[in-house]
């Protein structure tokens, strides 16, 4: 794929399938027919999810560490993801407090078996220092990273991870941002979501459904 700008190649890495559905690797055998099996690519489902949802963008944690989204945060982990911003007045303080409660219920499994990632919707203003103060104010414990980074990349992440509203006006309004939390087990391709204001013990229960291999995941 020549002549592609850096932005477009990032989009490609971000997991959008090849720009033309028939233009691309593996589909150039002129002997193949529409129905033949060799026109279909074999892609491992876990890899498919990585390509589609977890570009390896570089982010900065509230502890001012640089991390790569897939390699450092997502790969092999059981996690909870949400979006917030520090100057959010209505929803985020409550969701953050709720998640602090969840964190307490998880005890020392936080940071060992479970990881929380809160992405900032206002990366311009939410620098590492600002996020660090926010985390300290909420008494956030280890195992939970607040993340900032390039505004375009974070906006892209917001969209591909589904923290969007189909109404463009609502979607533009930071105050109406999506308050759900997404939880999942990357190795098992198990992903769910629930409101960020769900009862804390229910969020713990939801995490137990994807708690593998450490948890008592049956049928595993």
């Amino acid at each position, binding site marked *: 794929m020549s002549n592609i700008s850096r932005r477009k190649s990032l989009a490609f890495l971000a997991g959008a399938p090849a720009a033309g*559905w*028939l233009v691309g690797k593996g589909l150039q055998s002129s002997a193949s027919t529409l129905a033949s099996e060799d026109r*279909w690519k074999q892609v491992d489902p876990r890899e498919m999810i990585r390509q589609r*949802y977890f570009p390896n963008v570089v982010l900065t944690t509230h502890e001012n560490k640089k991390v790569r989204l897939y390699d450092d945060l997502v790969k092999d982990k059981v996690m909870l993801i949400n979006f917030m911003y520090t100057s959010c007045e209505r929803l985020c303080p409550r969701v953050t407090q709720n998640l602090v409660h969840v964190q307490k219920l998880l005890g020392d499994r936080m940071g060992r078996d479970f990881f929380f990632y809160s992405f900032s919707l206002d990366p311009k203003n939410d620098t590492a220092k600002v996020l660090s103060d926010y985390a300290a104010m909420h008494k956030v414990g280890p195992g939970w990273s607040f993340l900032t980074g390039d505004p375009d990349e974070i906006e892209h992440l917001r969209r*591909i991870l589904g923290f*969007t509203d189909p109404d*463009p006006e609502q979607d533009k309004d930071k105050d109406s941002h999506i308050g759900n939390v997404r939880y999942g087990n990357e190795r098992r*391709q198990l992903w769910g979501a629930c409101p960020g204001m769900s009862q804390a013990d229910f969020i713990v229960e939801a995490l137990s459904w994807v708690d593998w291999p450490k948890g008592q995941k049956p049928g595993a």
Partner: protein
Amino acid sequence: MPNKKDIDNARKNRLELIAAGVTRRELFKMGLLTSAGYLVAKKGLSSRAWGFDGGKGGGGGNDGGGGGGAASPPTRSFVTPFRNLTVKQPVASLNPAPTIAPNTAAGEGRTIAHQAFTKFPPQKFYQITQSQISATVSPDLPTQTFWGFDGEAPGPVYHAKYGEPILVRNVNNLPANNGGFGNNTVSTHLHNGHTPSESDGFPCFFFNSGQFYDHHYPNQLAGFSDPQFAATGGDIRESLSTLFYHDHRIDFTAQNVYKGLVGQYLLFNQFDTGDETTGFRLPSGQFDVPMIFGDKVFDPNTGLAFFDLFNTDGILGDRFLVNGTIQPFFQVAPRRYRLRWTNSGPSRWVQFFLTDPNNLSASFPFFQIANDGNLLPKPVQVTSVELGVAERADVIIDFSKFRPGQSILLENRLEQQDGRGPTGNVLAAGQGSSYLRFDVVLPAVADNSQDPATITKFYDLPTIDLSNVVRRSFNFQRGNGQWQINGKFADCNTNRFTVKQGSTELWTLTNSSGGWMHPIHIHFEEHQIVSRNGAPPPLAVERSRKDVVELHHNESVQIFFRFRDFLGRYPLHCHNVVHEDHAMMALWSIAPTGDTNPNP
């Protein structure tokens, strides 16, 4: 701007498509060729992934014509014959024999004893197994993995009889490796059986792979505990005919249903007999045909069914399946058929018309005889049927009105672009999406069913008695993308309200979610719509018993219930299964004493 290599590849691939028999015209119709003759660069399965180059905001979607945001590989229409569901057969016995208390030692995942086993001992036994299967949905897509009941997706259809209780042993052999989506801990719900709670498929009562779960289906009319109906074993006016079963596992329902865990269940009685020479004389046998509709997206590179895991709005597929195959053709004899339609979603609202591709302006009326599996007071002539997810309609179409050799399309003309609901536009004939093609073929065969135009009555509706009714209100809201009912969120541990066994209730459901439409489903009992926005329901087909109520924008609907016979926990929820999984639900229960909380 494509470069030379792209152009060459496009031309090569176009030649392949044409060699394979996909004409230029079909490619145009599929939206794959630009006017210059290049293959259109499809943007992938979710417009959200293309935020960088100015793709659409919000969730991916597509119009009723199948184009737009989603981009499955092209598939030919009407090349696969329609698949009739397999009829589920009972077994002589189950080993170990079913017990009232859960047989934990033998690996049963049930945790609550059967409350009515002694009162209604099972007369037939079934065993059904959930497992990974291989299926071909189209000759233009690879054979691929789904999850099915008894090796099929959709699974088999039960033929059950009122007064004949059955026990179904539900075996979970689903694999840990989900291939990209799905959760192998499951809870199977029979929608909308009058079923004891512990057998109803409550979302939180899921069980594990390697376990089984016995479901006791008493197949009794509602009201059997009421002395006034003792002689008839319940209120005949509460007869159900067409139910369906599907996975209902909390937070993973959409993934599991999309993966194939759905099937049908028919209930017969002395009127709806299954024999068109008796009772109401409805078309029967091979002329009584369950049809389960669903829409899906397939990955353009791998050809495999794709489920957008990070979509919370609602998923719209651009490939349309009936009984598990894409746009089949169905050869029908020139006589009446009873078609039992179920919209299994995941999210799309449909409105089906009959379309003659050679005469688009022609309109073909037919009869709707049941709503949500409940026979109407009498047949209603219609020219279309609208179904939100989980709604059912039984229709009678008389194919003798067409010429042998004629083909008629079953076309969805309701335009929808995202998970919020249809736009309200009903597209012109031929502009929608056809789910299947009926091909009327000879020979003519005997038709012993009665012409629905001459049927004057099925059942009366049960009386609506508001004298002692408990009134409750449910306000469906969306705040910051989180679904709430009366400002609260759902979870497994919260019982929102308790209904007193044997009572009547009047619920007002209000849609305050802004631009969203929701098909709301309440388990266990059928309801009647008393009013829609203050007036009796405008549509004749809605003057019936139902179990899924459509909540349009900013609507307020009042529904009347009787709650009888069994006890335990049940849910109410939006049946756009993607909304359901993001907790648009409330869990309630029936007990000997209830509460009267008006805003639970």
